[in-house]
């Protein structure tokens, strides 16, 4: 019911726009700072790495890629817990953090790829450390936002009475975190971690092998192995590399994610017992062994030791009780806030000045590039919708088909599109079609799964009684699609569409400009403009193209997806 919460759309729109502007300004400032770090010309100071295409080298490459992922994940988790906790517990922090996360998660991070890597190379000249850090930073930015949102949202939706119970029984903040807040957010954290890893592989592959003009930047890993194999046209190596990647992802899924998901089931807040409980063979093995209970006991002893230093909680936010601290906060807060705003203004203005140096003709190029990229994304999304809706609904409505198709689709979806891209390119360049078709295919590969899985979920969630009602009333064929299936799965399609679009922008950036068989291939598009501008150290163009992309994504989300989401919530919400 909308009357319950007319807030967001009715009252907050102007403030949301203002917040967007402020945040985009901050991003612009950060971007400008990165640009000032980037070298004026690409010096060949990075030691070049030759990738060993023998299969025996693969374990080491796989391990290196995995370590990069783990490093980025640990940073993401720390960020998630810290920022999510602060946003949920401090109203002022929440007002700042939530819109920032919202904008940051919608900006295609890969558009910063050249800038970030250039800045990192400049900071650590002559070493691969800069590349490593840049890669981890980009993976982190691909992983973190949904995790932070999930944790924050879980904290906010903890049932009021549970949270009152922790206060009525005077639990210390630490015990409260351990016995209420972490358990209550566990399911969301586990699912989002899994999604973040899937997204992380995509970024990892894109950052391990990265070229600007004649200069290529290579980190040893599975991504660079696949790129090198495709570049050399070595199909044996391609199959070995893909096999290793899929094996690694499936192993992680079976040994880490499935057990974690099955384990996290016990943290469901609802008290009713579900029908379809996730299961994991690995977890069953672990549970049968004596090792786990022993670890549990050890952890318990440690946590009790830690808990001993607790203090009695008081009223939440008692303004009268801490005037001194509040005054101190104000005294520190104002200059700090002013300084931050000044920095943001300075950065944003500097960036604007840089962009203003761009000849007017270049804006036409940017406009054409934007149009081309948008068309490519729309084409890919349309193709995704066309095949995934019928397929997803068929799978969702037929449990027997689902048992066969879903695991297959999950394995197919787990292969990051960026890993397949060099191979795709190799085929298309020799068969015909070139980069224009290849880039659409890449976007499609990266996005269709989101739509497919959401269509399946939507079809599964269609209420039994509505399906039976249409059968009894003999509503069939297109009428059934129109009255039940399409409206019923619409909210899921919107969710899938938003996620897919995010992936699509990222994919478009890495697919429009590639170095292949020592030739640079590019097609018209914003991604190509960004990479080419970085290669030529044409920073005004780089800044203008990146800023245009970020602005377009934010505007498009606000104008289109927000409305679709609201429509889904209010008119097509089932149950």
């Amino acid at each position: 019911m909308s009357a319950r919460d007319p807030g967001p759309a009715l009252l907050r729109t102007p403030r949301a726009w203002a917040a967007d502007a402020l945040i985009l300004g901050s991003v612009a400032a950060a971007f400008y700072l990165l640009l000032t770090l980037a070298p004026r010309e690409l010096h060949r100071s990075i030691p070049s790495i030759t990738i060993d295409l023998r299969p025996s080298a693969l374990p080491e490459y796989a391990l290196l890629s995995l370590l990069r992922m783990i490093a980025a994940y640990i940073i993401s988790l720390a960020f998630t817990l810290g920022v999510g906790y602060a946003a949920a517990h401090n109203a002022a922090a929440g007002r700042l953090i939530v819109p920032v996360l919202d904008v940051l998660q919608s900006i295609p991070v890969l558009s910063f790829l050249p800038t970030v890597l250039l800045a990192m190379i400049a900071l650590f000249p002559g070493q691969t450390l800069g590349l490593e850090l840049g890669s981890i930073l980009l993976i982190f930015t691909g992983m973190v936002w949904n995790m932070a949102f999930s944790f924050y949202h879980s904290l906010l939706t903890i049932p009021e009475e549970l949270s009152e119970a922790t206060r009525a029984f005077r639990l210390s903040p630490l015990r409260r975190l351990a016995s209420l807040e972490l358990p209550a957010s566990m399911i969301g954290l586990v699912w989002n971690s899994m999604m973040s890893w899937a997204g992380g592989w995509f970024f990892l592959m894109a950052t391990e092998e990265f070229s600007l003009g004649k200069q290529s930047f290579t980190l040893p890993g599975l991504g660079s192995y696949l790129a090198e194999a495709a570049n050399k046209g070595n199909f044996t190596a391609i199959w070995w590399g893909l096999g290793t990647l899929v094996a690694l992802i499936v192993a992680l899924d079976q040994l880490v994610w499935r057990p974690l998901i099955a384990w996290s089931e016990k943290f469901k807040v609802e008290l009713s017992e579900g029908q379809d409980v996730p299961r994991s063979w690995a977890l069953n093995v672990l549970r049968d062994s004596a090792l786990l209970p022993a670890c549990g006991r050890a952890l318990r002893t440690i946590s009790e030791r830690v808990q001993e230093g607790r203090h009695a909680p008081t009223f939440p936010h008692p303004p009268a009780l801490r005037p001194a601290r509040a005054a101190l906060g104000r005294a520190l807060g104002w200059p700090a806030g002013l300084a931050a705003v000044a920095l943001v203004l300075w950065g944003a203005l500097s960036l604007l000045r840089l962009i203003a140096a761009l000849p007017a003709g270049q804006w036409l190029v940017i406009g054409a590039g934007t149009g081309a990229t948008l068309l490519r994304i729309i084409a890919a999304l349309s193709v995704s919708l066309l095949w995934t809706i019928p397929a997803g609904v068929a799978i969702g409505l037929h449990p027997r088909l689902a048992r066969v198709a879903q695991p297959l689709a999950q394995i197919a979806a787990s292969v990051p599109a960026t890993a397949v891209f060099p191979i795709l390119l190799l085929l298309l360049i020799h068969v015909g079609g070139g980069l224009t078709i290849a880039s659409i295919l890449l976007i499609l590969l990266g996005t269709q799964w989101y739509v497919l899985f959401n269509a399946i979920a939507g079809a599964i969630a269609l209420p039994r009684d509505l399906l039976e009602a249409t059968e009894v009333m003999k509503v069939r064929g297109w009428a059934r699609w129109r009255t039940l299936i399409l409206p019923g799965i619409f909210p899921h399609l919107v969710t899938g569409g938003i996620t897919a679009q995010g992936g699509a922008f990222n994919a478009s950036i890495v697919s429009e400009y590639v170095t292949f068989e020592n030739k640079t291939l590019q097609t018209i598009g914003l991604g190509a403009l960004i990479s080419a501008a970085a290669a030529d150290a044409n920073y005004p163009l780089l800044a203008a193209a990146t800023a245009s992309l970020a602005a377009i994504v934010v505007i498009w989300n606000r104008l289109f997806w927000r409305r679709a989401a609201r429509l889904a919530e209010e008119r097509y919400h089932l149950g």
Partner: protein
Amino acid sequence: MAISSPPTVLVDAKDLTIAYARPDGGSIAVLYRVNLQVRAGEILAVLGPSGCGKSSLLRVLAGLLRPTEGTVLYRGEPLKGPNPGVAMVFQTFALFPWLTVLDNVELGLLAQGVAQDRARAKALEMIDLIGLDGFESAFPKELSGGMRQRVGFARALAVEPDILLMDEPFSALDPLTAENLRTDLLELWLKRRFPTRAIVVVTHSIEEAVFMADRIIVLATTPGRIVDEVRPELPHWRDRRSTQFQQVVERVYELLTGDRARRLAHLKQLIPRLPNATVSMLIGLVELIHDRGNEADLAQVGAELHFDVEDLLPAVEAADLLGFATAHAGDLKLTELGAALAAATVQEKKDIFRARLLETVGQTREIVAQLNQTEDHRMPASGILDELERHFSNEEARRQLEILIGWGRYAEIYAFDELTDDFYLEPGGVPAEAGSG
């Protein structure tokens, strides 16, 4: 319970006001100047319709909510945070789903720094006392509602509170289970099987209050304040069918529905607080009274329908507000208009309802007038909500808006678009005279 000397005052709440800030700088009180003492040896019931602030009052006593004005003394000391002498039982149990029964019961003890082995012993003792033995290692989701609330009781009693606070502890249970648990708790209390010295129970069931309590505090709404105090003064166990029991129930009903002049004076204000009743409930009640010869005893109707005060009172108030019935001394009597409404056809019912709604509820006239001033007969609900928020808390304003939407839609005075949050006039469906009202 109390022997000869005057009973110790455990909690002394003085001049409690709970108010929420309005956007324009003013404030809305949900509880106004309430004075309350919890004394050793008593079961105190706090009774009132929804929106009277009874749950807020309990949370102030628990130290979970800071009153806007007034103080709460526990054993003479003002509270600075959660009340150290209380434990609480929640309506929805508030059990941690990922902890076993035993872990849930231990939690409060561990939080107070009780050593693990002593906490375990105490928790097992409580589990035994409350009739949960055998379920120690079960998770809450494996238990029925009644057993879950038993865990809630065991957890609360384990910390040996001076005062046990209960927020509608039986209202989420089916009547039989609720009765079973209520009886068990009362038996433990009467036999002094746990050292707690007073129980405060918030409820909207009159029978429950009269059955258990030594004192019943009756609250009224807008803003919540104490109307009166009733002492059943019947020995336990009380027989619900006895005349004395029924007399106390009648007395409480009178307090809740009486005081009519004051309530109507309030309702006649420009912006009355609409009772949270659907049109179906209102018409259903009017038809029911009509079937009984246009007059009925509310306590009896409530008992027959298994309705609590929460369910029945809003419909009674709505019937009263719109002039379909008058409540007096626990009886509800239909007016001529009410009798006509009950006998009318579906379409006539709408006509009668529309006329009364436009006449008695100024907000509906205001909405129609504003709609008539716009070119497309359409306007966002936010303006009306802003207006309501100047008179009610934000939550109450939203509820008032929903009631206005529901009533007005039924009466076909205006329509509402969920998607855009707009009020609008149906083309051709507008009562011409409405605009000038």
